[in-house]
Every structure is written in structure tokens, then in C-alpha cells.
């Protein structure tokens, strides 16, 4: 009996310890998240988009864009707004992995009810070894449940006033530098297929299931990038999209329709698109979304005044930059 009592006491003590610890972690998480959302410049570049989407007013984003750096170099939400009245947000991160995309989506749908998720497909081919993949999963799961892990170093700007400023519009990175791509045609027909690893397929499956559960359309989009895409990746994506019944937009085969000119539209020798390239890709995407999906035109609707205002500013800025 005494032994039982001692054990019960130990269990209670352990529960109390972890209870207080989780309370501390949760409270600090809320505090750090609030400071991050109030001070965008305190947040480091890679975390800016996942912070930004949480700042958007509830249920205002119709299109959510996931992906690595290709995503925020190619899709401009403010242009989509200006041309189609579609509200979109790019939740891409440099070198984003599928697990990160999944947890970003989970975070975003806490406050948003997007109609469509556009997944830039380059991260599908990002190689992940078993251990590093497990680590990413643990870190992302941890950061999703306890945001303190993601925003833990907010103390640095608070202490020394360091800031991480960047010109971003709803996740789009505005970069107008031009370094042309000169190596010619890269989508040479072939029957080869690039492999999609099992780990990636697992997390793709989770994203697909989540979208189905929340009634969200999922579109796979490969943006023009000679450095990252070729016919092997195209065959792999086409096959995967067929297998899973997904829509797939291969923009690397639509360069003429989009109007890509590699002398003016490349940021860094065919890796990322620059502002000029992004403008063309976004215009094409806008028309594609308008034709293929039932997305509302929110222009002139009440509650979207800030979009109107930022849209005007954005248009002015783009005109000036592309002059």
C-alpha cells in the first residue's frame, strides 16, 4: 500500500513538472508569436512567410502557394489581385522540404480556408536521407505544436535591435536583377523519369489527404527553371499526377505561351525567375486559375480595402522597376 502511495506521489509530481513546463512553453510560444507578428522585421527571412500568413485576417486567402525559392520568385499574389481579384499568399521558403510544406499548410489552415493550394514541384525532387528526413519531421512537428522553437531567437532583435528587413508582398520576393540563361533548350524529349523518393511520396500523400479532407483543390505547378527542370522531372510529375488524380501545370513546356525570354527573365542563370519572369508567369497563372477554378473576384468587396491599397502601391512600384 505504501509502495503504491509512493508511486502515485511520484506520478503526480512528474505530471506537475511537465504540466508547468508545458504551460511555460505554451505561454512563451504565444508571446514570441505575438511579437513576431507585430514586428515583421524581427523575423528571419525563412520564417517570414509562415509568420505572414498567420497575420492575414481570417478566411481571406483563396489561394495558398507552397514551395521552395522557385515559388516566391515566380508567383506574385499582388499581381493576381490586381489582374484577377484573387487573394493569394506565397508560403514558400528557401529550400522548403515536403514536411515543411505540410506543416506550413497545417498552420495556414488554422486561420484560412483556401480554395486551392498551388504546390511548386521542385521540392518533390529534393533528396532527403532517412535520418535528416526524420529530423526535419521532428523539428517541424515540434515547431508546429510549440512555436517557441521557430521564434526562439526573437530575443536577439529585442536585445540589440537587429532587424531582418526584406521587400516582400504577400510572400512574393521582389527581385529585378537579370543574369540571363544562355544554354538553350533544356526540355529535350525523353522517356526517362526522375525518381520520387518514398519519403517525399509519404508527405505528398499527407498533403493530398489534408487537402481532400478540407475540400481544397491541389494543383502541382512547375515554374520555368532550366537549372531545376527537364523532361525527366516532367515525366515523373506527369506520372505522379496521373496516379494520384491531380492537376499538373508544366510551365517549362509553355514558355512560348507564357512569353519567357531567358535574356530578360532570369535572376541567376536559369535558376530563379526575376521580377520580369514572375510577372509573365503570374499573368499566365491568373488566367489559368480563372479558367479552371471557381475563384471569387474580391475587388471592390468590403473587407479587402487593404488589398486595394497595397495593390495600387505594388503596381506603381512594378511599373517603375520594369521601366
Amino acid at each position, binding site marked *: 500500500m505504501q509502495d503504491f502511495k509512493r508511486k502515485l506521489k511520484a506520478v503526480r509530481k512528474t505530471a506537475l513538472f511537465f504540466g508547468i513546463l508545458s504551460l511555460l512553453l505554451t505561454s512563451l510560444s504565444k508571446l514570441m508569436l505575438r511579437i513576431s507578428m507585430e514586428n515583421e522585421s524581427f523575423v*528571419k527571412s*525563412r520564417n517570414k512567410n509562415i509568420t505572414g500568413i498567420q497575420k492575414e485576417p481570417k478566411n481571406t486567402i483563396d489561394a495558398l502557394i507552397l514551395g521552395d525559392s522557385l515559388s516566391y520568385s515566380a508567383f506574385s499574389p499582388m499581381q493576381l489581385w490586381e489582374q484577377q481579384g484573387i487573394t493569394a499568399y506565397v508560403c514558400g521558403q528557401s529550400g522548403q522540404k515536403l514536411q515543411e510544406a505540410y506543416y506550413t499548410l497545417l498552420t495556414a489552415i488554422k486561420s484560412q480556408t483556401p480554395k486551392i493550394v498551388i504546390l511548386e514541384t521542385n521540392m518533390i525532387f529534393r533528396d532527403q536521407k532517412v535520418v535528416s528526413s526524420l529530423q526535419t519531421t521532428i523539428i517541424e512537428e515540434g515547431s508546429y505544436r510549440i512555436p517557441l522553437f521557430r521564434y526562439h531567437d526573437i530575443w536577439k532583435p529585442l536585445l540589440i535591435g*537587429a532587424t531582418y528587413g526584406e521587400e516582400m508582398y504577400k510572400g512574393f520576393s521582389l527581385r529585378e536583377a537579370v543574369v540571363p540563361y544562355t544554354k538553350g533548350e533544356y526540355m529535350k524529349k525523353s522517356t526517362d523519369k526522375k525518381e520520387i523518393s518514398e519519403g517525399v511520396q509519404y508527405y505528398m500523400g499527407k498533403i493530398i489527404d489534408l487537402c481532400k479532407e478540407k475540400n481544397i483543390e491541389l494543383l502541382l505547378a512547375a515554374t520555368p527553371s532550366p537549372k531545376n527542370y527537364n523532361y525527366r522531372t516532367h515525366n515523373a510529375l506527369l506520372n505522379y499526377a496521373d496516379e494520384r488524380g491531380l492537376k499538373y501545370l508544366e510551365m517549362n513546356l509553355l514558355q512560348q505561351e507564357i512569353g519567357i525570354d531567358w535574356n530578360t527573365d532570369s535572376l541567376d542563370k536559369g535558376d530563379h525567375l526575376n521580377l520580369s519572369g514572375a510577372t509573365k508567369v503570374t499573368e499566365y497563372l491568373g488566367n489559368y486559375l480563372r479558367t479552371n477554378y471557381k475563384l471569387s473576384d474580391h475587388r471592390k468587396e468590403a473587407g479587402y480595402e487593404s488589398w486595394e491599397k497595397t495593390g495600387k502601391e505594388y503596381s506603381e512600384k512594378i511599373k517603375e522597376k520594369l521601366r
Partner: protein
Amino acid sequence: MSYHTSAYLFLFLPLVLLAYQITPKKVRWVTLLAAGYVFSWMVSGKLVIHLIGTSLWSHYIGVWQAWLKLRCHMELEHASKEECANIKKNYKKKERTVLAGGIILLLAILGYLKYYNFFAQNMSQLSATLGRREPLQAKALLLPIGISFYTLQAIGYMVDVYWEKIPPERHPGKIALFLGFFPQIMEGPISMYSQTADTLWKGTSLKGEHLAQGSIRIFWGLFKKMIIADRLYVVVQAIFENYSQYKGAVVAAAAVAYTVQLYMEFSGSMDIVIGSGRMFGIILPENFRQPFFAKNASEFWRRWHITLGVWFKTYVFYPVSMSGIAKRWNRFGRKHLGKHLTKVGISAIALFPVWLCNGLWHGPRWSYIFYGMYYFSILMCGIMLEPVRNKCLEILHINDQMFFWKILQTGKTWIIIFVGELFFRANGLRAGIHMFLSIFRDFDLNKLVDGTLLNLGLDQADFIAIGVGCVVVALYGIVRERNLMGERKLQKLCLPVRWALYYGLILAVVIFGAYGVGYQQVDLIYAGF
């Protein structure tokens, strides 16, 4: 998968703990052994076979020695008094041959995998200098993780059996577990068979207090590694990789920074390792004991990487000190050279192989050999100048227990340590010499505060975190050194104070740790040795 990664801390370790607890007590050793091999396989792949082979070989050599001892006893029972001495001598010789064979094979494999390319490169250079062609080709050799650590443990086991300090182990699983306990595989501590084998084998059930003590020790390790070492890595990397761009105080600061980084990183990972062991109720030997409180180089090595020092002392220093050559020198010296010179000579005979092996053990680089010889020279100077030092103290009426003298001694030891670590970290011996000499060019302390250090990848906040972190570690060091509070006394503190300390430690790691966006996960330094 290193010990400080989330995969180890939040997945591997908890899963092994769970598997261990649900396994019947009698076969818990199998769970631990399987965990060791899975861990080794995850890092080294197929090379885990070397760890398995080393375990089987050690067992075989031990059993062979046991069989020889048994045969010897049997023959002695039926032998006359005159024959006994001869039989004993014969069997001792056989045992020695078996032991030598056992050690040679392990060292040959270690030597081939770790040092072949170093040897080939130097031989090729020598051939080229002598005008000969046909250089030895370098080979793509892969090293199993932890080979330098578990090879020493295996040799220690064989020698202990030979010396009859321990009985030979009949169960190969017990030796395999002693060499392949997963927290120890990567970086040690290098334990002796008598220290850990039995407790590992016991399969003690998990206990709440052990889990708590282990977890806190792990967090303390993470504090040192993630708050201090991983930040200093950035500065150290920037200066040592571009050493020609820096001189004076900046290079001196780099030497200090690397020493602190290495201590925080290695002792931090040892805390994680020892904490992991503690969770299973296993007490692993300590590897550090406040090394920066040492008053001389010799004491420093009794406090720094203790288990390596003890290993060399036990299996190299003592056998050489007791060898024929040492005895002959002793006799000759006492007759012709006097007490002091005999002591100097015998110290040189015994210390030279110790420090040559110490340098080489760290890796196939001239700078490591230099590092070993550096400490050999310093220790020898200390022994040679001891009478002079004692005389000076006597003339100046200085008591070596006086505070200012202790401070002076500690300061001198710090300089010795920093210079040693500068050569240890430098990209080769030439770079080390260049860096050392560059300290004396344009030495200007202003360089440390004029913003130069802020261009190396860290901001002011990072330096503040390093500084505060070091102060916390130093204060805890003082508390431990003065025996004000060890882990046991910590357990006896009243609950709110103890919990407050625990929460403070955990939150410090979570908030101030150098992880996530903007930081690089830094591999364990000693895992590379």
C-alpha cells in the same frame, strides 16, 4: 545521427528506453546491443561489421588466454617444484604472444584504415625528394565511427585479462555490449571493462530518478554545445579557414575561442553521453573535471579527456616504466647521473611514447603529432626545471599555496593550453606555425572591440549569449571545484528551487540555443577522431 540531434534525443533514445523497459530483464542486454549496432549502422553503414569483428576477436583472445591459464594450472598440478617455474614461464610467454597477436591485429586494421593515406602521402613526398617515381597511391578508405575509441577499449580488455585484473569473459555478448553501448560508440568515454561491463549486463529497470538525473545532465550538455560551442564554431571557422587574413590579437582570440569551443563541445557531448547512460542506470566514467582550474600542464591532462589520459597511463606509461630498458636506465642513472637526471631520463622514456601515441591517436596529421610532442616537451621542461623552480620559490619566500601564485600558475597553464589548441585546430602544421607567429605581429587589443569580430558571422547578441553562457559554466565549475554542490547535493535542494533551476536550464537551451533558421547544425568534433 549525432547525440545532440533531434533524431537521437527525441526518437532514438526514447525508443531504446521504451524497448529496454519492455524487454524481459534477462535479455535487456540484447536490446542495448541491438541499439548499439543500429546506431553504428545508421552512421557507418556496413562498416558496423568492424565493431562486431572487434568484439568477437576480443572475446576470442580472452578465451584463448583463459584456456592457456587453465592448461598452465593443470600442468602445474602434476609438475615437480623444479618444473613449475619453467612451465609458468612458458605459458606466460604463450599468453604474451596471444595478447600481442590480439593487439597487433586491431592496431593493424586501425593503422591501415586511419593512417595508410598519411603514410602514402609522406612516402610519396619523400620518394619525390629523392628523385624516385612510383608514388604510393592514396586509397578511398572509410573509417567506422568510433573506431579509435572502441579499439582502445578492446585492447584494454585484452591486457586486463592478461594482467589478471579481470577474469576472461566467456559470453561474447557481454564484450560486444561493453564495446558497442550506443552512447559511447561515437566519442567515448573510453571505459575499462571493470567500470561498465557488469552494470550494462545487469539490465536494471528504468527508474524515475535515473531518468530525471540523465535528462538534466543531457540538457546541461546541450546548454554548453548549443549556446556556446555552436556559436563559437562560426568565429573559429572564419578565422582558421582564412588565417592569412588575420594577425595579432584576433588570432590570439581565435585560439582562445577554439579552446572554449572544444571544451564546451566535447564536455557538452560527454554530458549528453553520460546522461544517456544514467537514464539506463549506468554510470559512465567522467571525461572532464574543471580542466581550466589546472595549475600546470600535467594537472590539465588529469582533468581533460580523462579517460584517454588514464588509458595511456595504464596501458603505455606504466608498462614502459616497468620495461627492461627503463630498469636498465634506472640502474645506470643511479650509478652515474644522480637522482634528478635519472628521473628526467626515465620520464622521457615513459612519456615519449605516451605523447606520440596521444598525438597520433587524434588523427593522421603532422599537426597532431606536433601537438603530442608539444605537451611532451612542456612536461619534460617541468620535470627538468623542478629543482630550479623549488630553489626560486625558496629564495623569494613564495609559498606555492599563495593565492597570487596559484593565479599565476593557472594563467601560465591557460597560455600553454591556448597555444596547444591553436596548433591542434590549424589546417596543418605550417598554418599553425604561421598563425602562432602572426600573433606577435601588430598585436592590438583594439581589434577585439573595433567591430572586426562582428564581421565573422556572429552579431552582438551572439557574443552576449556566449559570454553569459561561459559565466554560467564557470560559476558551476567553481561550485563543483569547491565541492559546494555536486549532482547529489543538487538533488537535495528543496523542490521549488530545484525545479526552478531545471526550468531555467531547459528554457535557456530552447530560447538561447543556436538552432533553427540562421544557424548551422555543427557536427561533433571528437566523432571525427
